[in-house]
């Protein structure tokens, strides 16, 4: 699994990949928010996050 946080400042883009499958994409995030969101996915599952979007 690859958790990528690109960009700078409060305009980070979070992309979570499982191989070629995109599990989650979100942008316009602060670094901490991107880390927190990905942590939530790790703990609760990516499908849960998608369902809440």
């Amino acid at each position, binding site marked *: *699994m*690859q*958790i*990528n*946080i*690109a960009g*700078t400042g409060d305009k980070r883009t979070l992309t979570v990949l499982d*191989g070629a499958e995109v599990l989650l994409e979100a942008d316009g995030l602060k*670094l901490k928010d991107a*880390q*927190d969101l*990905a*942590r939530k996915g*790790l703990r609760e599952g990516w499908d849960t996050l998608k369902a809440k979007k």
Partner: protein
Amino acid sequence: MSMTRFPNGLSTAASKFPMGAYTHPDPTDEHGYFNDYNAYASTDWTITVVGTSTPALVAGDGGILGITTSATSGDSSFLQKTIASFSFETGKPAWFAARFKVSTLATTMVIGLQVIDTTPLDVTDGIYFLSTTATGAVTGICRKNASTGSTSVACGTLVADTYTELAWYWDGKDTVNFYQDKVQTGSVTGVAASYLPDTTCTVSFGVQTDSANARTMSVDYVHTVKSRR
């Protein structure tokens, strides 16, 4: 140098047990993970990257995994073996050793067993090494539930672009000993009641640049074992 030979075998099992006549030490005595980085599969890992980074094998004797950050201060690359499979228990010792180097100091580096998390520099649970200063000073950390259950000790020093082995040993009773290059450099006690991680952990390591320059962590090997006895 003479060699000691055991042509009839060498066992760790009592003769009455199923493995009693097996001619090697019972491999199920411990649960372990070892990677010398002659091979690497990114799909075995949860890789958390700030900026850009693609960990990959690099040429060099011994098998080496190279992890290079991008060049914005705070950029990082962390690897955590999927799925977490090491829990800590009293009565069951555990060991960890890793040989690695960082290209330059003024680098934040972490290596050890940790819970899978997006911020390995500050996880809730684990027994691991952390270096955050330009001096290369290394801290050994034993942590349960973050700051409320964390104990640490200074236990080594990194030198830029120089391989070193950091290791720890949980004695299964109450103490974690920390080592650098086979020499004990620190110890924390009172672990069992307050600090022993209570969440399943995994092999974890990575690097963060603390300046606008890329940093590289080169990992020669990682070895961790937990007793089943």
